[in-house]
């Protein structure tokens, strides 16, 4: 577990023990207010995807902002953690097939309003059987496979499976359709919102024309949240990274600020124009891309090893960074970065206001 030197409330941000995941509350509140207002203005609802931060305290900020229909997570384990922290309407936007996981889903469904994804008849039967045994009521939503080339069903198969779900009434109910999770690394900017949502729209049409109109049609993405929320047939936007932001998101949605940053310390300075930071791949996650540098103009992080990050200066730029200096990094992918921290340092006006636990970190099962 992460073992920072714990600092008192009120400590200036730059005096926190490094590397530290630091979240600016004013920026988080601004991001949440912006997105929730625009989604509501578009006549849609928001289902915050909590695996983007894995932190109950931030999830509560999102729900309190209004306009939400519940929350979404990626795994059964995350659903268990968030249910323990007071979230009572949870969509597991994924499929689970192992008997042990299905038993956990049926058990959790007795305590919260739970919806889980499915993409096969066999899986629906297994969920039906488990909920009968547990005496639980469970919503089942069909994962619709779009351009992501991961799991999910095609629009043609959706009505049959919706009927299959209804066969297990009253324990199972057909909750609707959602855009299947991605099987790709990071944002796929080559795919337009139209292309992404085509399969979902088609599946909705096919279900509706078989007299099974889906109560929920949910599609994802902070990167095109306004476009998705403004679709007439999309009832819910599933989005998460808008709350904390990251470098990838700010590049396409400049109104969303990078509220989460990593504070690092220069640990070695041997060559002109290059310093080594005490945060490497283990403290940032570079699976989808390298972090940005904030506050040092002309600086970038071209290279990271496990424990070290290099910061270099572009030709002609100058800096006064030296051994012991603090440097702020903006993660490329926030969901992947929170997963390597246990604590979020919440700051306001440059001072520590709260320490929040990343309670659902590592809950892959």
């Amino acid at each position, binding site marked *: 577990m992460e073992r920072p030197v714990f600092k008192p409330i009120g400590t200036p941000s730059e005096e926190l023990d490094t590397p530290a995941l630091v979240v600016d509350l004013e920026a988080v509140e601004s991001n949440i207010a912006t997105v929730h207002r625009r989604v509501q203005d578009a006549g849609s609802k928001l289902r915050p995807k909590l*695996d983007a931060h894995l932190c109950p305290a931030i999830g509560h900020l999102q729900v309190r902002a209004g306009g939400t229909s519940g929350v979404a997570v990626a795994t059964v384990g995350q659903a268990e953690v968030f249910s323990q922290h007071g979230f009572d309407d949870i969509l597991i936007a994924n499929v689970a097939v192992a008997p042990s996981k299905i038993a956990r889903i049926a058990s959790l469904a007795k305590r919260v309003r739970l919806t889980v994804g499915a993409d096969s008849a066999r899986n629906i039967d297994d969920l039906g059987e488990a909920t009968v045994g547990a005496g639980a009521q469970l919503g089942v939503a069909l994962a619709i496979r779009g351009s992501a080339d991961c799991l999910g069903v095609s629009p043609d198969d959706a009505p049959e499976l919706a009927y299959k779900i209804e066969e297990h009434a009253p324990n199972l109910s057909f909750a609707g359709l959602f855009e299947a999770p991605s099987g790709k690394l990071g944002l796929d900017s080559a795919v337009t919102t139209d292309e992404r949502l085509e399969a979902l729209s088609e599946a909705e049409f096919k279900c509706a024309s078989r007299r099974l109109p889906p109560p929920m049609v949910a599609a994802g993405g902070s990167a095109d949240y306004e476009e998705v929320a403004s679709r007439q047939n999309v009832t819910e936007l599933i989005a998460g990274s808008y709350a904390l932001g990251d470098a990838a998101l700010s590049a396409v949605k400049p109104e969303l600020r990078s509220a989460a940053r990593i504070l690092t310390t220069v640990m070695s300075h041997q060559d002109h124009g290059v310093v080594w930071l005490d945060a490497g*791949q283990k403290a940032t996650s570079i699976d989808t891309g390298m972090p940005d540098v904030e506050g040092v103009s002309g600086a970038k992080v071209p290279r990271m090893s496990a424990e070290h990050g290099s910061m270099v200066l572009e030709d002609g730029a100058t800096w006064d960074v030296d051994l012991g200096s603090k440097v702020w990094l903006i993660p490329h992918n926030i969901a992947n970065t929170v997963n390597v921290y246990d604590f979020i340092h919440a700051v306001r006006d440059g001072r520590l206001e709260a320490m929040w636990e990343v309670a659902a970190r590592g809950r892959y099962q």
Partner: protein
Amino acid sequence: MTTARPLFHTPISELDTPALLVDLDALDHNFNYVAGLYSDSVCRMRQHAKNVKSPPILHRQIAAGGTMGGVCAAKVSEAEVMVEGGIGDILITSQVVTPDKIARICALARVADVKVAVDDVRNIRLLSSISAEHGTDVGIVIEVNTSMDRAGIRRPEQGIELARLATNLPGVTFRGVMSHQSILGLPDRETRFREGRHWIQMCIEAKQAIEDAGFPVEIVSTGETYTIDLAAEMPEVTEVQGGTYALMGTNCDYMEDLRHAVKVLTTVVSSPDADTAVCDVGYRALAAPGGVLPAVDGAGDVRVESLGPDHCVLKSDGDMPLSVGDQILLISAQQDIMVNRWDQFVGVRDGAVEVVWPILARGCHH
């Protein structure tokens, strides 16, 4: 954090997935290989804790033999976990430059033989003043830059200056030199011996310059997985900082004497196309720095096509032989980065659970 601990003798087929497995036969093979390699040499293994982050695994190499009895740690908090886990000799391989962390090193120095890598006179002065204030003694090991142009002194004369300071200042003791080398791609034995020898020789030259200036060098700590066998042949090297060798990853597949010990157990959750299977683990748990993909363990023509945050997409040239509910094992290309994202190892032998080791230093970036 509260991942379920499977019971002793649970068959692998009944484990919840994804799970991080350690093949104990392979682990013991790697540890016995190192014990044999260093049985007759001056050089000894100082296993790097950053790869396994778990004291019981480090103790297992110490028990198997070939070690100098201590370990490396990349960070101060990682060193704390190792000392708490009963290891009494630690070399912290990163520079520690902030006063509050230096105070933590001093606390460790009260109960263990603690050394830290330095490459800057200002850092030695700070270490000295804080350690002297606490009445402790912190070992100083000078990091020498070789192949990586990362931390480490660039010229032997810097080493002499640092050794002189470390010898003369209170609260610190000069102990030796260290270096870390990297190699690209999948080199053959001749290439890695030639390159490794070249880089390690730079560290030895710094050591000789420091000794020639009158400061005895007790420790020459260098080497890594790719030089694990070479280092045993270099008499000036006193210890090797092997890390990846214990659990292995596909990035070190050219080390033919070592076996893959860590694997991720995952379940097929969807079969959307005839040639496709989707498993329940993605890059969040596997780590894919720079987009690197894991390998499928012994699965014929099944390959990893892509990784999403929580899913792995498998493809086959013909019909996919895997169905929903089937389990497979994945082997990481970046073992070190992957282990840092998990809470426990499930040690297996003969198809069943033998031991569960919490990864106590997971997330110890500080």
